[in-house]
């Protein structure tokens, strides 16, 4: 077999492994906080991720974290922990604005969402100003 042909085959095999690894993504759930008033990432915002326990109607705390300089918080949940269910991300929005010397209409923002297929990747951003916010299922 020619060198060229071998290289091409190797390329297919490596790509296959990569997609297998990504099918159960190490970061199946991500968020991104954007301060739409300043046009900058919402960095140093405290947040928590919870999962709902239907039998007790309680919430289990999974992670606490703070957004980085890019407004992201990697490592919210592992592939193993990411089971189907209802999740909630709690963002400390007023605390965030206070640290910049401003008030915020929303003391905190909680986004509750349903995960039916944990094999997919879910991106739940928060676009925020002092008097508005929005969220969507992104990628």
């Amino acid at each position: 077999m020619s060198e060229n042909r071998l290289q091409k085959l190797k390329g297919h095999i490596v790509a296959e492994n990569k997609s297998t690894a990504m099918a159960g993504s190490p970061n199946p759930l991500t968020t991104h906080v954007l301060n739409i008033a300043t046009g900058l990432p919402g960095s140093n915002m405290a947040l928590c991720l919870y999962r709902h326990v239907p039998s007790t109607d309680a919430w289990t705390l999974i992670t606490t974290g703070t957004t980085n300089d890019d407004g992201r918080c990697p490592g919210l949940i592992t592939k193993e922990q990411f089971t189907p269910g209802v999740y909630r991300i709690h963002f400390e929005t007023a605390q965030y604005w206070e640290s910049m010397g401003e008030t915020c209409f929303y003391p905190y923002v909680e986004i509750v969402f349903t995960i039916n297929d944990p094999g997919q990747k879910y991106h739940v951003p928060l676009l925020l100003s002092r008097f508005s916010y929005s969220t969507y299922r992104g990628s």
Partner: protein
Amino acid sequence: MLTGKADLSTPLRQIMAAAASSPLTTHVLNTGDGIPAAKMAVSLHRLDSELMIWNMLSIGTTNEDGRCPGLISREAFISGMYKLRFETGSYWESLGQTSFHPYVEVVFTISSPEQRFHLPLLMSRFSYSTYRGS
């Protein structure tokens, strides 16, 4: 909107006057279909800051225009932390559709209850936004 002289002796105008006097209003819009979100259950709660529990103040359903008049009276509208809860999941279910968010809760702080607060909710099956409007 009421225009002209309000004849408060007629029942309809009385109801509308009472509804119009709520200092807190909302408006739910189904941005996926470009229509008001009618028949959505909405409830208003205030946080009891001593007991740290939420007290439900009113519950209603959005009308054909996606509005829910009469959420709270001027007298009851004191400073504090409030929560508007929108039963968005049930709404989409009633249209035979799934949605990403089982419900939406918007928590906000009122420190100037003499003002008016209009808090719309624009939502689709996979997104929503809210803002302080007028």
